[in-house]
């Protein structure tokens, strides 16, 4: 779990890899407890506390009130075949909130295909994928997946005729979010792009493209992140920022599924699915 020690404000109480694990900071706390028949993820933030009786507690007090949230992704016996070409025969796994599931494997082993299936863009030849809301909401309907997931992938492009702000505003509107320009600006600021720049995305460098894709994925603050080679084309500074963002997301209880062959990115994984190819 030392990999997920994000600095002095976060503490790890249990080693990762088993069923138990708990992280907390002054502002938020996530605990994962082995429970009868499954794993429950609880998260609490001080600013989310009800006024009574917990408001009597000092704001910095590390309390553990079970506000369950997060999405667990379960996939079992997933197989994909394109005509005669078998990509993979049977892949199963679970990605829990507060975890990074790293999908690894040689080129052509089907990492991107698996992510495409898990995010609902492609139907598997066999097997099933389920999103379970650990907040007691039960299974998330397939139609609702788009509200909870954000995707960064090389095969997904943004509109080259529009500038960065126009792209984000479009995705904000089409996702059904309340139009909020300052949120788009914040996302662009976070990834290191200038919100006032009016150059169409077609004129961006590949690194800037990648940053904008990440901004688009964080726009609706999704609970699940699918990252397919997220560090590709990023400079060292960008990669450092990416790592800190992924770690923050994980600490915030998001479920991250990562397809990569980069040794540094592979280290972020708390679980791993290795595809043979």
């Amino acid at each position, binding site marked *: 779990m030392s990999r997920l020690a994000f600095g002095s404000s976060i503490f790890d109480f249990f080693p990762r890899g088993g069923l138990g694990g708990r992280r907390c900071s002054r502002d938020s706390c996530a605990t994962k407890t082995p429970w009868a028949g499954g794993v429950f993820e609880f998260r609490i933030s001080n600013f989310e506390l009800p006024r009574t009786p917990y408001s009597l507690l000092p704001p910095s007090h590390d309390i553990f009130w079970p506000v369950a949230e997060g999405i667990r992704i379960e996939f079992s016996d997933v197989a994909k075949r394109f005509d005669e070409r078998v990509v993979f025969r049977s892949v199963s796994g679970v990605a829990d909130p507060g975890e990074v599931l790293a999908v690894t494997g040689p080129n052509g082993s089907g990492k991107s295909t698996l992510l495409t299936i898990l995010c609902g863009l492609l139907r598997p030849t066999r097997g099933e994928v389920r999103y379970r809301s650990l907040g007691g909401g039960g299974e998330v309907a397939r139609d609702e997946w788009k509200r909870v997931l954000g995707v960064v992938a090389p095969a997904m*492009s943004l509109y080259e005729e529009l500038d960065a702000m126009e792209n984000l505003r479009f995705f904000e509107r*089409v996702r059904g*979010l*309340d139009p*909020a320009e300052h949120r788009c600006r914040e996302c662009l600021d976070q990834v290191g792009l200038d919100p006032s720049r009016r150059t169409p995305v077609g004129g961006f460098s590949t690194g800037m493209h990648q940053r904008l894709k990440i901004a688009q994925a964080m726009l609706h603050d999704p609970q699940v992140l699918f990252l397919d080679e997220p560090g590709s084309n990023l400079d060292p500074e960008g990669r450092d920022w990416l790592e800190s963002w992924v770690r923050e997301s994980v600490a915030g209880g998001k479920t991250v599924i990562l397809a990569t062959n980069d040794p540094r990115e592979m280290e972020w994984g708390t679980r791993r699915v290795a595809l043979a190819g």
Partner: protein
Amino acid sequence: MTRVKWSGGPVVWRWLAEAWAVTAKDLKAEFRTRVALSSLGLFALTTLIAVAYSVGPFRIATDDRPFLLAVLLWIVVFFAALAGLDRSFVKEEESHTAPLLRLSASPLVVWAGKLLFNVVLIAMLLLALVPLYCVLMGYRIVLVGWFVVLLAAGGYALAATSTIVAAIIARAVGRGALFPVLALPLLLALMVFLIQGTTAVAEGSVATVQASLRAIVSLGGVMTVVSAFLFPVVWND
């Protein structure tokens, strides 16, 4: 970081706002690249000039004018439309923006947005082409009001049919050739009724115009309903 707020309010209003976002994005992109507009405009202009030069306003017998000029008008409109109305879907696939759109918007929102975009393109084509055609070919319309209604209904039906066909062919390998091949059989009936209606507005026969309009509106309605059911399957699978 600012908290994310999902839109509230009536479902229909949110749905319309999301569909309009797709249309506005397509219009903005189109006015910056002008790919579909150039295809439509140049094709329409070239065929119109060819027709005006070869046939002209005086080479057709007066009795034949209402019918033959209606035929020529709709041939120009239909083939110009076929040259550009598939762009909105084809471009999404070619530029790899479709996957993200699939993940972000509901299928019906995308369909409605693209349909509205095609309606706007057709409207622009008809607004530019029809007056020019009437002037160059000396085409005299008796029932101008009915003609405008006919153009509106025909333009919508043409856009509705083109939109669903464009969605179907967008992911195919030979999409360039497939669009006219698939669209023409579906558009033939519409073309027949539009020619009949246009002939009637030139001759001043209100009853025939009304009959044609009923058929055109029915065709447009059927295409709309069928598309609304078919599109989610076409878009997602």
